[in-house]
């Protein structure tokens, strides 16, 4: 990311003649309205003059007469701040076509497929417009997010289809066609990895075309952990959604909850009034979760390459962090510390004096891990130089998080778009340029050490004060968008309220979806034996990735397409009893 000479987003918007949407509450989130035909030109101008290349996600909403599409772009301003310029276009329901931006921003390929899948908006000139998250047995003319169909109807159709032989045959035929087409074009035979495979923790399906031991092409299918969470968000009040948001993912649960809470606070315009102590506690929790996630990551990376000793040893040390988290928040996963307006629990001084020595031990242990992993030749030789990604490719594919930093892109949401207490703390952001698996390992090791230091510093310098402020049950109407640096990258939540005590639309884009295009790029050309470490290096968290689906505007009725049409294990499926249907 290259800095611009402009200081605020309004300057950029006015210099490009864009219509700014009033009122501006947070100057770093600027909404501008443009018409759909101007979209490509605006993006080209942004790319050429303002060095913009990072698109976070594409948000779509069905407003009855028209569709609203939001494109949040990240712009690096002169003071080092990362602003969000959000392009707002409207297209007519009866003519749902818009230009695809994949030619300008290759990383938007999966976002557009998702919008097509959910709403049926057709993107012209998209290289591969197919469904991405819905099941195969869904009929072609049904788009789950539209208002003209209810969730109950879709569930009924899917259940019928599954009972028919026809659906089974169609599915088999689809798989056979997918594999045969693939094989006959390019190479000798195809290997399918997933949805169940010892190298994967969560279900994804890859079909690799191999020749000998080299991978020639890969076909990716996601959507196995698709749970209907965006619909589920709409049927619960704001405070109950806190507990749903943290269950999007088990490893980055705190990041999702924090992002949701910040988005709601921005929507309610109270983001500046959060007490300082609450902000520090949020920071501490986020950093502890980062340590735990990275320790998990390199344990599993070692296990995938057969190095079980490192796996056992790092997971033994991960227990230290889990015990600390258990003591602070009461649970080892799903901490539920955040509340709208602050945090729910306090960290007492006695706990602080108990935690800091444990963190010091952990720091020494992580240093030992670093010595063991970076110096052991048989481990390093499996990682150096494998599946590299250049900086330009990473930028154009919109990679986020440690993957971007391992390719030489110096971006970190904690430093550039600070939230919680990060503007009071100083920390380094390690960046490496090689872009292979070894640099991913090095970056995450350094980040764990920095996270330990940050947590200790935040614990020591925490100010006294309140823990939360009172927030009314009904959030005033508006929009809120916020992002955090989850252990895997940039996690972004968008919240729209219509004045009631339940949200109107919530959109979540988890970091793994942003890293998927770069995964596909990395997988081509490697050897079969390297497939698990390469999949591992982007730190896939499929539970985060697949959460989107059905939105039904008819409030109050049904919801779940929970386990019925999911193809494989959804052990993070939110189990609802029949009583919830009385909402």
């Amino acid at each position, binding site marked *: 990311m290259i800095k611009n000479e402009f200081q605020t987003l309004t300057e950029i918007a006015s210099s490009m003649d864009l219509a700014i949407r009033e009122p501006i509450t947070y100057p770093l989130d600027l909404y501008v309205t443009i018409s759909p035909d101007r979209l490509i030109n605006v993006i080209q101008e942004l790319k050429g003059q303002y060095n913009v290349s990072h698109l976070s996600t594409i948000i779509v909403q069905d407003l009855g007469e028209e569709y609203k599409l939001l494109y949040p772009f990240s712009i690096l301003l002169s003071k080092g701040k990362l602003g969000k310029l959000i392009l707002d276009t409207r297209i007519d329901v009866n003519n749902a076509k818009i230009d695809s931006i994949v030619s300008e921003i290759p990383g938007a390929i999966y976002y557009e497929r998702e919008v097509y899948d959910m709403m049926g908006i057709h993107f012209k000139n998209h290289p591969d417009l197919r469904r991405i998250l819905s099941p195969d047995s869904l009929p072609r003319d049904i788009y789950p997010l539209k208002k003209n169909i209810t969730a109950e109807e879709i569930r009924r159709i899917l259940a019928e289809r599954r009972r028919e032989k026809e659906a089974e045959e169609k599915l088999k035929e689809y798989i056979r066609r997918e594999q045969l087409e693939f094989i006959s074009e390019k190479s000798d035979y195809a290997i399918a990895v997933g949805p169940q495979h010892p190298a994967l923790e969560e279900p994804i399906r890859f079909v690799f075309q191999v020749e000998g031991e080299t991978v020639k092409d890969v076909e990716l299918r996601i959507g196995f952990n698709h749970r209907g969470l965006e619909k589920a968000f709409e049927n*619960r009040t*704001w*405070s*109950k959604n806190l*507990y*749903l948001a943290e269950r999007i993912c088990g490893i980055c649960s705190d990041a999702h909850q924090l992002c949701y809470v910040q988005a709601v606070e921005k929507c309610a315009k109270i983001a500046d009034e959060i007490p300082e102590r609450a902000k520090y506690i949020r920071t501490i929790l986020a950093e502890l979760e980062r340590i735990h996630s990275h320790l998990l990551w390199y344990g599993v990376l070692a296990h995938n390459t057969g190095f079980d*000793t490192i796996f056992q*040893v790092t997971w*033994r040390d991960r*227990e230290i962090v889990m*015990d600390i988290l*258990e*003591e*602070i*928040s*009461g*649970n080892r996963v*799903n901490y*539920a510390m955040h*509340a*709208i*307006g602050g945090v*729910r*629990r306090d960290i007492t001084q006695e706990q602080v004096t108990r935690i800091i020595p444990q963190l010091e031990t952990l720091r020494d242990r992580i240093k*030992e891990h670093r*010595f*063991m992993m970076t*110096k*052991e*030749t*048989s481990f390093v030789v499996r990682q150096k130089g494998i599946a590299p990604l250049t900086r330009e490719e990473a930028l154009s594919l919109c990679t986020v998080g440690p993957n971007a930093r391992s390719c030489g892109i110096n971006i970190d949401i904690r430093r550039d778009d600070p939230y919680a207490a990060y503007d009071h703390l100083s920390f380094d952001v390690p960046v490496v340029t090689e872009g292979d698996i070894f640099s991913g390992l090095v970056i995450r090791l350094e980040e764990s050490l920095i996270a330990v230091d940050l947590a200790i510093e935040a614990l020591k310098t925490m100010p006294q004060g309140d823990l939360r402020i*009172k*927030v*009314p*049950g009904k959030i005033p109407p508006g929009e809120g968008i916020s992002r955090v640096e989850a252990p895997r990258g940039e996690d972004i939540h968008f919240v729209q309220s219509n004045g009631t005590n339940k949200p109107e639309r919530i959109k979540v884009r988890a970091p793994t979806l942003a890293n998927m295009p770069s995964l596909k790029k990395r997988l081509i050309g490697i050897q079969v034996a390297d497939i698990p470490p390469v999949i591992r290096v982007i730190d896939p968290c499929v539970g985060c990735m697949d959460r989107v689906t059905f939105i039904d505007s008819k409030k109050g009725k049904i919801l779940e397409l929970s386990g019925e049409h999911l193809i494989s294990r959804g052990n993070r499926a939110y*189990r609802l*009893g029949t*009583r*919830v249907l009385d909402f």
Partner: protein
Amino acid sequence: MVKIFDFIPLLKEVTKNLLRDTVTVQYPFEHVKVPDGFRGAPEVNPELCIVCKNCEKECPTQCIDITPVNPAELQNYSLGQGKPFWFSINLSQCMFCQVCEESCPVKRKSSQSAITLNHERWRLAGYNLEETIEKKLVYQKSKEKSKTITQEVESNGIN
């Protein structure tokens, strides 16, 4: 030993591990120590509960169920105890989030909540589903008091 001295980086860790005790806690025979703030299963204290039904409303999974009970079905019931209710918690639906404890108005008045998450109660496995629903009798002494507390809490906003 792939190249000549490759085993050296891990040698220290491996010899240390050979010489010291294992970290495995053999669970049924040894016990894990659980910190005080751990979120175990909720249990209601019938002496403090005023049956304002706030926890039932705020529970995200709707696992608390407070239903009135006909006094004729109870033994040892005397009129001075108040109106009886069955307070049942479905432990298989509970997600141990502590919202019930936070939303209890008794906690605000006397800093001790009527429904608490007991940090010792986490060995909840059973042999059949009926065991997961726990029922206790609670008594509502005065209906007006419960109503005023509920209204007061509602006006103060989100818990």
